[in-house]
């Protein structure tokens, strides 16, 4: 266990997670809006925003899948120390963290018809979040909003199986944006 495993968490957990959650909630309630979070300094390669999301939402009850380069010892130890979340294969994950190309999106729980909430939330690390590119419509969006998504076809298919599906949180540096399954992507 290295020194950085123990550092990088919230200094004032109850207040910092409350502030972070409010931003995450606003992001999920208003798909495509880009918001800023702060407070975590997780080890490389993970971004500040992804670190904040994990500290705010994950604990021993939420198995997490680490994809690609994110499945590394420093990150496993950091998540274990700060949240206690078990690292698992995609089919048992409540959260997943990785880059778009590494996530292998077919294998995650998408919920059941009776319990569509039993689905994974994907934390997708991105290079930059910009309000351009794919256009989104649906709940939480007054008319239309733009966000640079990694692709469109997958999100259209994800929305087509509504109310089942995956929910996405895109992170880049200290910025984040969300895309729930309810958003219609064009």
């Amino acid at each position, binding site marked *: 266990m290295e020194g950085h495993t123990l550092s990088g968490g919230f200094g004032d957990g109850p207040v910092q*997670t409350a502030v972070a*959650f409010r931003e995450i*909630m606003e992001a999920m309630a208003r798909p495509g809006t880009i918001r800023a979070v702060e407070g975590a300094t997780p080890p490389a390669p993970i971004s500040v925003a992804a670190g904040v999301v994990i500290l705010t939402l994950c604990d021993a009850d939420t198995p997490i899948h680490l994809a690609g380069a994110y499945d590394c010892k420093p990150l496993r130890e950091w998540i274990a120390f700060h949240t206690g979340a078990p690292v698992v294969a995609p089919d048992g994950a409540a959260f997943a963290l990785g880059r778009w190309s590494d996530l292998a999106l077919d294998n995650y729980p998408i919920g059941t018809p*009776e319990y569509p909430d039993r689905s994974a939330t994907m934390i997708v690390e991105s290079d930059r979040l910009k309000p351009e590119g794919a256009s989104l419509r649906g709940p939480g969006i007054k008319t239309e909003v733009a966000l640079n998504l990694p692709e469109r076809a997958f999100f259209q298919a994800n929305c087509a199986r509504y109310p089942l599906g995956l929910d996405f949180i895109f992170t880049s540096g200290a910025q984040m944006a969300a895309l729930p399954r309810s958003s219609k992507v064009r």
Partner: protein
Amino acid sequence: MTEYTFAYLDEQTKRMIRRAILKGLAIPGYQVPFASREMPMPYGWGTGGVQVSAAVLVPCDVLKVIDQGADDTTNAVSIRRFFEKTAGVAVTQDTQAATVIQTRHRIPEAALREGQVLVYQVPIPEPLRFLEPSEVETRKMHSLEDYGLMHVKLYEDISRHGAIATAYAYPVKVEGRYVMDPSPIPKFDNPKLDMAAIQLFGAGREQRIYALPPYTKVVSLDFDDFPFEASKPDHPCGLCGAQDSYLDELIVDDDGTRMFMCSDTDFCAKRREGGS
């Protein structure tokens, strides 16, 4: 120890509630099960709403609590004091100044804006519960989008009373998918469910959380020949004279004199201060 952790609930409970809120926002109108905790108040006093409020509050929030529109009733005052004490947040009676509003059975008259959060206290979250007592069955009905029974209920209203007699907790369909109980708000408030603020619904005893993101399409169920009507008592407010606000009928003296007055006390007080 004399101090509470921020907003009373322990961190693991808040994380669990927060995850449920996010799934609720991702699937508008769907009831997410959550492990409701015992709160220091009885069921029926807003234990669900209080848990949701505790999970969303931040220290800089300004909290307003209303009970049937009124800021000054026992339930509203005690919940406001609870969060003053356990979260240290500022409180207000002003709808515009509030960032989080916890409500029992009303939507404020003033339009809410982006950045505000409206938290409802919900007694029975399942709109089909009085038609089908089994949770297994109602879950199946939601999953199959089998809402015929609800239309039969509204039709029976019409055949018995000549009109849809449901006056509160009037069922709505969310984004063309889930039928949802908007909590026992008067049906006068149903058109306001389509708003700019985030709406969160918490049912403590029944252990359900559901949500409406801003600008979600919410349609009150009706028939082509019996369209939905947002009705209210056909009177002006006896205090401020408002024609367009929801009214309570109160007995104001020992002789049984009745008076209609705004149920939203902040709305009514502001109009009277404004000199109308």
